């Protein structure tokens, strides 16, 4: 292909024969690449954070909240039926919120309490995902922690889930268990399998529980009071529920089956029982009606990933909250979940919320998640724009460096420029030589920058760990990781997400445009040189 001579010469000046690439080209291309890389990575990470927070917020409060501007719904079940009949609404969960005072052995907490329907609530807010390991730390030799995670079904009228912070304040915990080794029996145990605790409800009694095998498949369970082996249960098949307060075990057979007399011993710690006071009790007290605190068990501890969620929090049943607030048959509103197609786009969700509001009529408000948390996302956006504002001048600095280097090149090559004109080159072509150099540097820098950004995205965990560890130190790094949770950050590749592709294209184009512009001034100077004077220059 016959390359126009100006393109050919600009290429040769960047990539001279025999040298491969000039030092100026290496520095310029690398400078542009770094700028492109940084801009893409910053925006990609900010988008990753936004996606993560978006997911966390939706998980912790649903897609929208339907609430009355004042008062409470008269017949909330009718309203709930109306909401459920909306074509775009996927799930509806009523709630009643308030504050409660909790006390446990003199320790107090005043969490934000949410009364929910455990079954419906879980369809909108995945409480089961938030339930965490809640067993107290026990250092017992020759024992293993075997507490199963609590389940949403454990939430009953006399059972509550409390947040990790509230649990720490109250020094309360859900039921927990350890398996201790019985030396006498283990030496005689024929089977080499094990047995695990698959269910431990909040009503289980503290003490030593034992499981004794009758043969490979059946066993007997004794409770803490059954000292004479008056067996509480004789289990012959896999079972999921033995009734309230009875732990459920699951056999994990080994190569040798269990035999009669094989014994397992468990130490079980019952769930903490906490006293609950409500503001409604104060109202009653004014009327000289003193009510004792309500006692509830801690069914589980939860951790909501969205840091904006109440740290001191409690989940109870709707009826529990209605009773505590003396608001029987009342709800405050509904958490809503919409079809994924609607929820994926903020405008669609806003429209769906408006339609839902219209269908309810009256003084209902249906507020989507992004309106309720607008302050936070505005802050994130502001941070993103600020970062870009900082990054763009860095890109411009690279452009200035290119302009200066090319300008120096024009001065250094003044006589060559004169010769090119003398040999028949037009001024436009002479200018093109330098403009093309800026363009090629920008293009190669953008491509290299894309490559670096892809590598950064690919190895982000390793790089972030290294950076955080070296800047924040080991302890600080743990704090950063807990808050930002960058390990679970989703930063999409350009082929996975149109937004990511757009970022790559925008910043790549920006680099090419700025570099080309950087070549314009030297090009203009070169084109304006008087060839006769250029040939005379020293």
């Amino acid at each position, binding site marked *: 292909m016959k390359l126009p001579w100006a393109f050919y010469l600009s290429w*040769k000046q960047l990539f*001279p024969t025999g040298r491969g690439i000039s030092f100026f080209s290496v520095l310029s291309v690398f400078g542009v690449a770094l700028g492109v890389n940084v801009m893409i990575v910053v925006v990609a990470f900010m988008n990753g954070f936004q996606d993560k927070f978006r997911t966390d917020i939706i998980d912790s409060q649903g897609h929208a909240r339907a609430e009355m501007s004042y008062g409470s719904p008269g017949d909330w079940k009718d309203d709930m039926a109306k909401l459920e009949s909306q074509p775009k609404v996927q799930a509806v969960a009523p709630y009643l919120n308030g504050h409660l005072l909790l006390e446990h052995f003199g320790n107090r907490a005043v969490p934000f309490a949410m009364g929910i329907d455990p079954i419906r609530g879980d369809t909108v807010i995945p409480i089961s995902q938030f339930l965490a390991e809640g067993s107290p730390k026990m250092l017992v030799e020759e024992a293993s922690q075997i507490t199963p995670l609590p389940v949403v079904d454990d939430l009953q009228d006399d059972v509550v889930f409390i947040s990790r912070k509230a649990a720490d304040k109250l020094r309360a915990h859900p039921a927990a268990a350890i398996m201790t080794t019985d030396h006498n029996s283990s030496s005689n145990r024929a089977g080499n399998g094990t047995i695990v605790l698959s269910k431990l409800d909040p009503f289980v009694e503290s003490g030593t529980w034992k499981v004794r095998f009758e043969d490979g498949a059946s066993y007997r369970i004794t409770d803490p009071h059954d000292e004479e082996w008056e067996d509480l249960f004789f289990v012959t098949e896999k079972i999921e529920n033995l009734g309230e307060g009875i732990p459920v075990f699951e056999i994990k057979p080994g190569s040798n089956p269990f035999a009669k007399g094989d014994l397992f011993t468990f130490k079980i710690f019952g769930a903490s029982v906490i006293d609950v006071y409500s503001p409604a009790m104060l109202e009653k007290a004014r009327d000289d009606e003193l009510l004792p605190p309500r006692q509830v068990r801690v069914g589980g501890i939860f951790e909501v990933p969205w840091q904006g969620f109440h740290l001191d929090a409690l989940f109870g049943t709707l009826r529990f909250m209605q009773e505590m607030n003396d608001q029987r048959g009342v709800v405050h509103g509904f958490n809503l979940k919409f079809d994924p197609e609607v929820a994926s786009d903020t405008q669609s969700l806003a429209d769906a919320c408006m339609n839902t509001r219209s269908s309810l009529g009256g003084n209902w408000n249906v507020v989507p998640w992004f309106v309720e948390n607008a302050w936070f996302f505005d802050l994130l956006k502001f941070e993103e724009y600020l970062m870009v504002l900082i990054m763009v001048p860095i890109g411009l600095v690279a452009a200035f460096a290119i302009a200066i280097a090319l300008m120096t090149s024009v001065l250094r090559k003044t006589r060559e420029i004169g010769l090119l004109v003398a040999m*028949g*080159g*037009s001024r436009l072509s002479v200018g093109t030589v330098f403009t093309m150099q800026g363009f090629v540097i920008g293009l190669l820098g953008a491509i290299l920058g894309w490559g670096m950004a892809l590598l950064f995205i690919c190895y982000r965990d390793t790089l972030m760990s290294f950076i955080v560890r070296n800047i924040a130190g080991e302890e600080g790094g743990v704090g950063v990781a807990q808050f930002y949770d960058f390990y679970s950050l989703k930063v999409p590749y350009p082929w996975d997400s149109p937004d990511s592709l757009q970022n790559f294209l925008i910043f790549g184009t920006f680099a090419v445009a700025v570099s080309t512009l950087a070549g314009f001034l030297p090009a203009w100077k070169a084109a304006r040189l008087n060839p006769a004077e250029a040939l005379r220059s020293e």
Partner: protein
Amino acid sequence: MSEEPAPFALEAKGLAKTFPYGDEVLEILLDIDLSVVAGKSVSIRGESGCGKTTLLNLLARLDTADVGELYWNGEAHDPKLPPGPWDAARRACLLGVVYQAYYLIPEMNVLENVLLAARLAGSVGKDAKQRARELLDRVGVSNRERQLPQKLSGGERQRVAIARALLNRPKVLLADEPTGNLDERSAGNVMELLLEASREEDAGLVLVTHNPSFAKATDEALHLVKGVLGSP
């Protein structure tokens, strides 16, 4: 009825050039008439600063004249106007230039430097490459075609510059003190090469030189004194 231009490789009529110098006007060139026949050579001698290089620049249209007429191979070019893209393209085809300082592009090897002339004329191809190799062979540097200019001696560089000037089969060769940076032996060789090339390529040669013996070797020796070009 206007008179037809003479069939010269290069012809200049009544060229004049002045430069402002403070409140005064310096008259550098006065009513210059010059004609060069294809295959013939003309030398121009004169004291330093007398306007020899300025005259060459006017002939190549690298500078504008105050008055005068200019013809390249019979084509009329207005020397009073800055050249446009068409003039630049014609210059690439019709003129070859050789300078004292060679002006080879340091980022390109010898062959690429010679081929640059063809690229500027938009005629690079297999034929141009073959001719470039023939010319390098003729000027005696064919074994250095892959070398960078920095690796060559002064004489070799000037030979490459001559090959480059000849590549597009120009009608006129303009040489501005081409031996100025060379030792006596190299200068003699280069001069011989230029004159021979001019004859063989049927190109008119305008040679600016200080060397009387080189001037004597040309077909016509002229002297520039106080802006006037004439026989010595």
